[in-house]
């Protein structure tokens, strides 16, 4: 309906290979961006109390979107299942904490970006077995990473500066004179900061998956033997996926603790969270960056919505709603796997396709 593609012809491959070759898509993205950048930070979400909208919805959704993109690179684009996401986020968070301890004067943004590399290194290390083992066996390997790292987060007291509470507590940091971490940071500042990371990382992920690197990942995913016979080096390719994926997880973990939670124990990185992130990826759509956005937003906001809906409309105990939303998410996962294994992203694509040929049906 909104598409006016006639006359948008491409005279070069560069035009074809843009992230959004269709003008209307570019306009759409620009509108979303404008809303995200100029509306949300000042007004929150329509109808919701501002700090609630920011602190309980927008900031975590943005952070988890980074996680979901990272996990999607591994699961959706490279076809390697991982249940260690939570722990890899933890690596980023603890790395960030240690780095701020050692370099208190370095800009926190640089520290967060740097802590991703620690996570990437750890991720690549635990990705090593993926060369020899596949599928469900790899699940076990990533679980090993998850549990071993969880143990480290408790047992290696150095990681949390021997803090008796066993938690990492975020110091206050400023960027360009604005407080970005700690409780005094304005929600808008924090939101814009995580959004900045998200935009940067989305662009990078988009670039990677459209180019040689991403094709290598997808080749391994779709048919690893054929990929190898075409000349893809499986180890290098898989490890790069593990490293990039873990980088994203690490950065999002650091952001989660530093910009959102303010303090964290190992519990924030446990295996249940790994499941949650996997749900985001499945629900949003395996192998789709847009899907990561939708999956993260949906999986995070759905229980909140359910809880509020139950409480306000039907006066249902929030505890029941908590369980109901657990069941509902489980059921929705099964449902979406049956109906559309490619998740919300594919549904969105279908809608878009419909809009492109509107008013026709096909």
């Amino acid at each position, binding site marked *: 309906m909104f598409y006016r593609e006639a006359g948008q012809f491409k005279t070069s491959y560069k035009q074809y290979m843009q992230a959004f070759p269709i003008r209307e898509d570019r306009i759409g993205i620009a509108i979303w961006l404008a809303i995200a950048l100029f509306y949300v930070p000042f007004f929150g979400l329509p109808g919701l109390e501002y700090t609630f909208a920011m602190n309980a919805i927008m900031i975590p959704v943005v952070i988890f979107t980074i996680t979901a993109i990272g996990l999607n690179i591994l699961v959706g684009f490279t076809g390697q299942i991982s249940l260690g996401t939570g722990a890899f986020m933890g690596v980023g968070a603890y790395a960030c904490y240690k780095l701020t301890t050692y370099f208190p004067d370095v800009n926190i943004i640089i520290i967060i970006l740097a802590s991703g590399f620690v996570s990437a290194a750890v991720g690549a290390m635990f990705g090593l077995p993926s060369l020899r*083992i596949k599928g469900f066996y790899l699940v*076990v390997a990533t679980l090993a990473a998850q549990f071993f790292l*969880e143990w480290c987060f408790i047992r290696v007291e150095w990681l949390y500066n021997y803090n008796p509470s066993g938690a990492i507590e975020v110091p206050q940091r400023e960027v360009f004179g604005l407080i970005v971490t700690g409780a005094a940071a304005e929600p808008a500042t924090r939101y814009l900061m995580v959004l900045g990371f998200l935009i940067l990382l989305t662009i990078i992920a988009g670039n990677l998956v459209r180019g040689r690197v991403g094709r290598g990942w997808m080749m391994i995913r779709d048919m690893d033997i054929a990929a190898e016979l075409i000349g893809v080096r499986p180890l290098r390719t898989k490890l790069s996926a593990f490293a990039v994926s873990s980088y994203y997880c690490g950065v999002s973990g650091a952001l989660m603790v530093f910009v959102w939670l303010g303090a964290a124990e190992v519990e924030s990185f446990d295996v249940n969270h790994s499941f949650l992130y996997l749900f985001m990826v499945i629900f949003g759509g395996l192998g789709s960056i847009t899907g990561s956005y939708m999956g993260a937003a949906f999986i995070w906001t759905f229980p909140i919505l359910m809880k509020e809906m139950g409480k306000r409309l039907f006066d249902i105990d929030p505890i029941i709603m908590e369980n109901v939303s657990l*069941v509902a998410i*489980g059921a929705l996962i099964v449902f979406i*796997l049956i109906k559309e294994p490619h998740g919300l992203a594919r549904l969105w694509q279908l809608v878009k396709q419909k809009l492109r040929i509107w008013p026709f049906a096909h």
Partner: protein
Amino acid sequence: MSGIFYDVLADPFLQMWQMPDFFIQVLWEGFVSGILYALIALGFVLIFKASGIFNFAQGIMVVFSGLTLVGLHALGVPAFVALIITLGVMYVLAYLVERLVLRNLVNQPDIILFMATIGLTNILIGGGQWIFGGETKSMITAELMIPTGSSVWEPGGGIVIFQHIDIAAALIAAMLIVGLALFFSKTKVGRALRAVADDHQASLSVGISLNQIWVITWFAAGIVALVAGIMWGARSDVSFSLQIIALKALPVLVLGGFTSVPGAIVGGLIIGIGEKLFEIYWGPLFGSGVEGWFAYVIALVFLLFRPQGLFGEKIIERV
């Protein structure tokens, strides 16, 4: 350096030698938890063999069946009646899973089915908490006439304690395994199940539809889960945190192979005994509490050298 070598290579064995009764106790404890791991792994194997599905929900099925049993009893249902009703519930669960999930996901890639079982896990957790509440429940041990008490063996001045409940667990597990073995080799349905593992077409010739076979395998896995739930519950109550422990069946499977029943048993015992020994004799070197990951890391190392597991066949890749 010599200190480390001593701590790793000499001291633990010295300790074993010095306190043989304690060593036996450790082995026994490892053996019992190995049996329980094996029971959970057995559920995985049954389903994987018949349908190629990696059933992530097996762990929560253990909890769910235990909760159902205890919950029913709490409502005043006599213990053995509750047991039978619970079996019925597990059958209904198997039926629903086949009807609502498996049937609709035929021919989907394995990874999709795996993820569906993760969804199923969520449903069972939410549903279980909804129905039975989140509190820890104690297993109706006495009512099910599971012996409690303990026997003491005092070899040469030492002391080894055998809990009757652990002995019972080992015996019941053994009976269950023998029963399953008989079921697979002696009954028509059992043979069909074995056929289906090898060849879906062949199973049709036995006259049982694939759908029925799925229901039966999931039901069988449900029974195994119930037994595991009872035994584990009797040792340390029924609560949702058991579900994470149940994940330990995964490294067991890696060791034993996804399709091998004896593999599950042997793998369970290796993990159970191995992690106890490691925790007791080497754990202090790491500051203890290594049980959480030891099994996984062992499995990981093992995978690197023998990706097909102990009893699995070597995989030949074809193009």
